[in-house]
């Protein structure tokens, strides 16, 4: 399977199953699209009719280009066969060892964001903070069930994790102690709304946190529409100075500004550039996923606008990169030569198998987005995963588990997508959230274009 598309002056051909990427000229672009179902003579005739007025386009030259396409097919770089369908099943069966936990250290929040999927941090339940005892047991559970994995991930999440800061610090210390004993390497990460982000938190995070996510939606009026405190006051003016101070001291360690865009700011590029112009260089902006009846929900009429925004973002990133003031965008980060292996491309995030969420009371869920939905409870950190049928169900999720994905060129980039998004959109973790697919495909097209253009610049 191949996918051909244009981005400004680039003609790009992607080969799904080999992962190959080809930059081609307009003649080759047309030849490749005709190659599989058009006789050679007919291809030459059509190309000459369209491009024959160009001095470098001759029948001999067109035939040579067809030979090149043939050679690429023979070498498995165009129309490569699919050899990976069985990989998904076999690989996911192996994934009973756990390598990542999302620790919900606080089911409470000091903001009251109306679009919050976690219902203002409570996850449709009661407020609560994780105790040190539960947190330590969670780390013990992770290490005991991690098997051959050496690299383990622990994410402090909420609610607002800084509302349980002393426990976070104590758990990092405990993790550091345990990783030495068990020859593991724990990467701690944290997400915060920034309200409690002070110098002490900054210093600790810069020492211990592999990555820190800072929630900011962009322009003040956009951010303050949803991200308000319990009195309804916007939080922008309180948190932006904290974020600037944090990032100034972060050095070369990872962080992300993470925003959410909604129907109210489909011009989200302005929010990304607002953050970039404030000096933040690691940026992420995600579409809201909410009940379609909500006024903030994205609509089908928004799609063309969003596509245009993603394309403009790509152009702006290329332009700024050339000027030496580039920034990164989470979805446009691709490592072409050292990127993920086929196993990861097929199997996805590992939710419900090797990645689990832990509530403040020690209950286990497939991921943070299922917390609070009792039918998805998988067990607890003392007895382990007892709902093995649920684990099997999540193990079946892959790039190959949905018939609708069969002919999608992007499936080895999205790995079958997000089980939670599928569930919330269709009621089934193996359903297809088509709106998300549309956005994903556009982002991958733009990401590859940015990569190719910045490679050209270098």
């Amino acid at each position: 399977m191949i996918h051909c598309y244009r981005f400004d002056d680039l003609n790009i051909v992607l080969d799904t199953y080999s992962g190959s990427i080809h930059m081609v000229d307009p003649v080759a672009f047309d030849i490749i699209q005709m190659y599989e179902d058009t006789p050679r003579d007919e291809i030459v005739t059509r190309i000459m009719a369209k491009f024959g007025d160009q001095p470098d386009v001759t029948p001999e030259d067109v035939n040579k280009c067809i030979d090149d396409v043939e050679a690429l097919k023979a070498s498995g770089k165009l129309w490569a066969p699919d050899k990976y369908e069985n990989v998904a099943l076999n690989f996911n069966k192996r994934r009973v060892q756990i390598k990542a936990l999302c620790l919900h250290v606080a089911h409470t929040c000091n903001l009251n964001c109306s679009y919050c999927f976690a219902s203002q941090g409570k996850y449709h339940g009661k407020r609560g903070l994780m105790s040190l005892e539960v947190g330590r047991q969670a780390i013990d559970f992770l290490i005991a069930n991690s098997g051959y994995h050496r690299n383990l991930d622990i994410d402090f999440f909420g609610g607002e994790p800084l509302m349980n800061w002393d426990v976070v610090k104590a758990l990092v210390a405990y993790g550091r102690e345990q990783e030495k004993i068990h020859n593991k390497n724990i990467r701690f990460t944290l997400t915060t709304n920034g309200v409690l982000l002070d110098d002490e938190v900054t210093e600790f995070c810069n020492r211990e946190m592999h990555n820190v996510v800072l929630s900011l939606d962009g322009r003040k009026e956009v951010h303050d529409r949803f991200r308000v405190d319990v009195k309804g006051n916007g939080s922008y003016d309180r948190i932006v100075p904290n974020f600037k101070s944090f990032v100034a001291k972060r050095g070369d360690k990872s962080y992300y500004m993470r925003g959410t865009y909604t129907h109210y700011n489909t011009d989200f590029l302005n929010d990304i550039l607002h953050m970039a112009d404030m000096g933040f260089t690691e940026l992420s902006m995600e579409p809201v996923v909410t009940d379609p009846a909500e006024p903030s929900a994205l609509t089908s009429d928004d799609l063309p606008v969003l596509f245009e925004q993603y394309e403009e973002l790509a152009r702006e990133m290329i332009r700024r990169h050339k000027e030496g003031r580039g920034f990164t965008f989470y979805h446009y980060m691709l490592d072409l030569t050292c990127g993920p292996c086929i196993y990861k491309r097929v199997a996805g995030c590992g939710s419900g198998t090797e990645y689990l969420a832990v509530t403040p009371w020690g209950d286990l869920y497939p991921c943070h987005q299922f917390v609070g939905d009792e039918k998805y409870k998988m067990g607890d950190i003392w007895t382990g995963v007892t709902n093995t049928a649920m684990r099997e169900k999540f193990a079946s999720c892959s790039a190959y588990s949905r018939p609708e994905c069969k002919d999608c060129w992007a499936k080895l980039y999205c790995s079958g997508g997000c089980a939670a998004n599928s569930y919330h959109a269709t009621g089934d973790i193996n359903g297809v959230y088509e709106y998300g697919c549309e956005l994903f495909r556009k982002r991958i097209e733009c990401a590859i274009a940015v990569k190719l253009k910045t490679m050209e610049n270098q």
Partner: protein
Amino acid sequence: DRIVTVETRDLEKSLAEGGCGECQTSCEKTEE
């Protein structure tokens, strides 16, 4: 040359190598 093939990771080769599973939840092997 009307076609320029960009260098990308060989997915079939990665199939033979097996998945090491050490990547961060969302590779380690290629970074080593």
